[in-house]
């Protein structure tokens, strides 16, 4: 992957008028800046209504920004119509033309660009083979299953060899099993064709599985951009921490700050954490995020240990396949979820509700967040 920029959004804002009179405009996206690299699998992740689809539509050209710049392949594209942009879209409901066959659907883009017929045929066949739909060329979209329509929609977009492929929740309508298969399939395709994918989803697992980088969005703003592991391990705020994966959010108060560390009053005890470059002062309230799988449970024995240590009582244990969730009430009344691998639960790690325990983890586990 080279570092050349494929799509850039610079301070893009787009508002939609609200039908009711006298109301302020709803800001679909506000002051968004993204720099998407060539050949990257880039995901816009967020809850519905966060502006991720609007962002995609701004890149596709179905919406024009109120302010800011959309730059595609080094060219300012604000004023370009959708048909003038080197991008193609896979729509959420596939949007296959019902009056055309699969072949005609895939050939549509080549036909309107007046590509010679022999080349059209060759490229259509290649594209259909690429998505393993070679045998279905003569069918109508209505004769295909959802997964097959999905593949045709992909072929129809890819056959044009766009610089960027935009995918708007393409797996949303498929059942869980098919969705998982298609996740690997899409990733394989992206590596194979080597073009930039910009993928919109509200499914954090999907985003983590496929993406090179993820932009987490909420309420029209981009909160964090990073690799899946960065987003997962180093969330920048409460929203990102809780939207991606399960997480424990504990309220804490700064006791003292020294160099790169802070001492916090948290969960009925005192802990020391890396500051992560955050500006905090003594007495300030902060949030600490800890992933459930980074915590361990030990029987209380009164001895102090290295790292972080909180006292509590087992409230409930819930078997969930490979892991067993342990709910622990801390001394100050807050609750923690701790994951223990189910195969370990039978032995030393067996706890019953009511057991007094210590919850601990390395000081690198918890993540200091401003409110």
């Amino acid at each position: 992957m080279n570092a050349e920029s494929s799509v850039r959004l610079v301070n893009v804002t787009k508002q939609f008028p609200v039908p009711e009179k006298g109301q302020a405009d709803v800001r679909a996206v506000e002051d968004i800046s993204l720099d998407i690299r060539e050949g990257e699998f880039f995901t816009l992740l967020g809850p519905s209504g966060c502006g991720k689809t609007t962002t995609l539509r701004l890149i596709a050209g179905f919406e024009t920004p109120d302010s800011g710049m959309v730059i595609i392949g080094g060219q300012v594209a604000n004023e370009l119509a959708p048909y003038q942009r080197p991008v193609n879209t896979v729509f959420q409901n596939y949007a296959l033309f019902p009056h055309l066959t699969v072949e005609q659907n895939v050939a549509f883009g080549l036909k309107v660009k007046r590509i010679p017929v022999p080349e059209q045929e060759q490229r259509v066949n290649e594209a259909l083979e690429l998505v393993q739909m070679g045998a279905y060329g003569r069918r109508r979209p209505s004769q295909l299953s959802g997964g097959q329509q999905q593949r045709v929609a992909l072929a129809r977009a890819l056959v044009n060899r766009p610089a960027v492929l935009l995918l708007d929740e393409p797996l949303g309508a498929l059942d869980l099993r098919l969705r998982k298969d298609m996740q690997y399939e899409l990733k394989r395709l992206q590596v194979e064709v080597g073009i930039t994918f910009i993928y919109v989803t509200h499914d954090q697992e999907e985003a983590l599985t496929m993406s090179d980088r993820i932009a987490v969005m909420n309420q029209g703003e981009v909160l964090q951009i990073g690799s899946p592991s960065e987003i997962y391990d180093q969330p920048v705020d409460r929203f990102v921490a809780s939207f991606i994966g399960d997480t424990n959010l504990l309220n804490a108060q700064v006791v003292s700050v020294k160099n790169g560390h802070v001492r916090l009053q948290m969960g009925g005890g005192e802990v020391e954490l890396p500051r992560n470059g955050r500006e905090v002062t003594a007495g300030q309230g902060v949030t600490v995020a800890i992933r459930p799988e980074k915590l361990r449970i030990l029987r209380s024995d009164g001895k102090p240990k290295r790292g972080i240590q909180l006292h509590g009582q087992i409230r409930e244990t819930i078997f969930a396949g490979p892991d067993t969730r342990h709910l622990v009430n801390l001394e100050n009344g807050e609750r923690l979820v701790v994951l223990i691998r189910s195969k370990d639960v039978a032995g030393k790690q067996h706890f019953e509700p009511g057991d007094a325990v210590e919850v601990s983890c390395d000081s690198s586990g918890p993540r200091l967040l401003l409110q």
Partner: protein
Amino acid sequence: MAEARVAARWAGAGYYALLALFLYMPIFLLIVFSFNDSVILAFPLKGFTLEWYHELLQAEELLASIKNSLLVGFLASAVSLALGTLAAIAIMRFRFRGRDTFLSFASLPLVIPYVVLGVALLILFSALGIDLYLWTVAIGHVVINVPYVMLIVAARLAGFQANLEEAAMDLGATYWVTLTKVTLPLSAPALVAAFLSSFTTSFDEFTLAFFLAGTQNTLPVYLYSQLRFPSRLPLAVSLAAVVMVVSILILLLSEWLRRIGAGASKTKGIK
């Protein structure tokens, strides 16, 4: 309970029979009398004859009026189709200032009595110094047909997703190509249905034609003028029978096409 249900069923059947009688009896009688060998429209029937149909083919004035009606019908329907389709696309696919007002105004002819419309257009044409002729009738018919076309086509446009058009543009089609390759083909059944329903409306329409026709008669106007001559009555009856049958056939065809369209949109895509 069972008795009450039986009674209700009989009442229902009776109601239905009466309805059918009042709706279809006159039409049936029309057809029967068109074959009756007498100038007086009364029972008992005298005998079977094709004379009136034969005479129909000889009546030059009448054939001219049919020609006029066909001409006005085609002209008015073609123009209504174009204008109504454009209006439907504007309403369904664009957000613009005054959209609701536009929709109300475009639908207004649906509720204005034809007599009022006829007088209004008559005043307008004479104020503008336009001589009344067949094409003034056609203009009147365009006014009444545009809302129908608009509603029929708009219903079809609502039936398929707007993002099919976005998909076309995304694949490189200009607005015009999208219109001709996606929007119009997908709307085709509605367009044909709209054209046919415009045509039958225009072909049968009397009030506006009566006000706006000038010296040339359309068929309904001619038919009405013939009612003054008792000897011409059977001719009018047999002609009415022909028009009736053709109109019904055309309407059935247009409804059938509309359903094909609706069926096709149901099987399209997911869900």
